[in-house]
């Protein structure tokens, strides 16, 4: 018995160490980029490898944020994430709520048609041609309208509304409340935690949106942050990161890249704790039910 306990304890420590190392390995790239981006440019140029900087500096950030292209793309992305999320929540939740009502006459057909869109996609080109026909090329709404809803989210939301007591909607309709008013004044406020979770996932999706922007926006003034990042990081094309007439010493390109990554991650990191709380809970609820 005693020996077994010892071997167990060793096994457990080993397990804890291995998982700890895994987490460190996963975290390291972010740590490295963060640290270098805040290092003094002189020190970075001299050493090339900085794990613990001697002199800190926010020079890369002040430079980056003072360039019009970068600031503008941040603004575009902020617009996308806020406006897109609000519109997405409105469209998805209204449809999902309507579909959760038993008296909805076509719900079976509609549900089937929605599931079909999850299983089969016509591909990039027909979508591209549609956006072009709608005259949305070079329009920021080309990134919002086609992404307003998707089959999975509507199904999940419908399942959530199904779990609300049906008496609420019934009582409201007996009191003469229309479905729209019930949805807006009763159901939505009751569903705030769920809406917050869906909203955060939508927001992260819009913030990270890259491919649609690449397809539909040629005008670099309209680029969201991800396309600008791609050009900065991967294409090595010199987008005018220098303000006209600006005569300052440029920090090393590598540092600018790292600072740009940190700025683009920051909003996601800020909402992450909230999302995490929700998806942990969601997984728990699922497991209890199953």
């Amino acid at each position: 018995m005693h020996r077994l306990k010892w071997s167990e304890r060793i096994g457990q420590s080993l397990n804890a160490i291995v998982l700890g190392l895994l987490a460190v390995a996963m975290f390291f790239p972010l740590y490295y980029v963060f640290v270098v981006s805040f290092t003094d440019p002189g020190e970075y140029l001299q050493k090339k490898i900085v794990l613990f900087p001697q002199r800190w500096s926010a020079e890369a950030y002040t430079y980056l944020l003072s360039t019009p292209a970068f600031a503008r793309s941040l603004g575009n992305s902020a617009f996308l994430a806020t406006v897109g999320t609000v519109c997405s929540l409105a469209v998805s939740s209204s449809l999902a709520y309507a579909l959760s009502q038993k008296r909805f006459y076509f719900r079976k057909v509609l549900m089937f048609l929605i599931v079909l869109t999850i299983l089969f996609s016509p591909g990039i080109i027909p979508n591209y041609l549609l956006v072009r026909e709608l005259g949305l090329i070079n329009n920021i709404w080309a990134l919002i309208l086609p992404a307003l809803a998707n089959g999975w989210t509507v199904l999940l939301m419908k399942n959530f509304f199904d779990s609300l007591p049906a008496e609420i909607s019934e009582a409201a309709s007996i009191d003469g409340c229309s479905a729209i008013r019930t949805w807006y004044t009763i159901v939505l406020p009751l569903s705030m935690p769920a809406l917050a979770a869906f909203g955060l996932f939508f927001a992260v999706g819009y913030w990270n949106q890259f491919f649609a922007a690449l397809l539909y926006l040629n005008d670099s003034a309209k680029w969201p942050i991800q396309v600008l990042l791609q050009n900065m990081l991967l294409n090595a094309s010199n987008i005018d990161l220098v303000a006209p007439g600006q005569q300052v010493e440029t920090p090393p390109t590598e540092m600018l890249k790292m600072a740009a990554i940190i700025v683009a991650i920051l909003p996601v990191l800020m909402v992450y704790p909230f999302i995490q709380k929700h998806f942990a809970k969601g997984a728990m609820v699922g497991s209890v039910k199953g």
Partner: protein
Amino acid sequence: MSVTEQHFSTHKGRQTSSKRNRRTKWLSALRRDRSLYLLALPGILFFLIFKYIPMWGIVIAFQDYSPFRGILGSEWVGLQHFTTLFANPDFALLFRNTLAISLLNLILFFPFPILISLGLNELRNMTYKRLIQTVIYMPHFLSWVIIAGLTLLLFAKGTGLINELFALWGWPRVDFLTNPDSFWIMVTLQAMWKEAGWGTIVFLAAMASVDTQLYEAARMDGAGRLRQIWHITLPAIRSVIVVLLILRLGDIMEVGFEQIFLMYNGAVSEVAEVFDTYVYRTGIEQGDFSYSTAVGLFKSVVGLALVVIANRLVKRMGQEGVY
């Protein structure tokens, strides 16, 4: 609405079939719950316009589509674009690359979250467990652009951290990113870094529902931790593993498009071109809309067939399918 009502009442007396009955039913349903249908309208319009109109656009795969003449005015060519594709030497290449990346994913990526979950499930210190989870879930929320950028900053031959370290130690610099031999394994590792932690959620949820009495009983019988994992934990999550594995097989035509697109470079084009990147290049960059739609359609149809077969298999094994 009053117009409908009138129209409706004038026809009421004349029609007697069950057809009329059905029509009456949905019409009166529409009338009764106007507000409900109005609420669903924006969402329905969205799916119609942005999901179903593009499905109609597929017909250009069977045409010689000209943007000036439109879908209605363009000439029909039947299956010509498909025969061109199958005869094209690129086709074998696309298939090979797509399959290779998917299979590597299956062999290396798939078991990884299961192993991590087993480890996490054994941790007794909840704070430590949660800390590790927080860290390994996080990459899931980063965009592929950022992940490709991080990869470049770490692995680039000239200035990447790893090669700087190699140089410091006097080792030769290694070409990680523009080397066709290592491309597949690099993208697989990259996907693992991004999604492995996220993948543990479903396994951990399955493990959390195991009855703790089973473990106690096993301990009474003298089973160590490893035996308990083998005889209790693994059987408990077996159904989840099997379902996910089969669905994975159904998804074999799907490789992360953004990931491959962003990691693509001239040096690795032979091994990096997959169906989606090829559609982008021939369609958007070269403007060959009809041919690229045909390629995309081929991929989607094969993918759909695989998913349907996979779902059948899942159901035949007595599990709940995806739909």
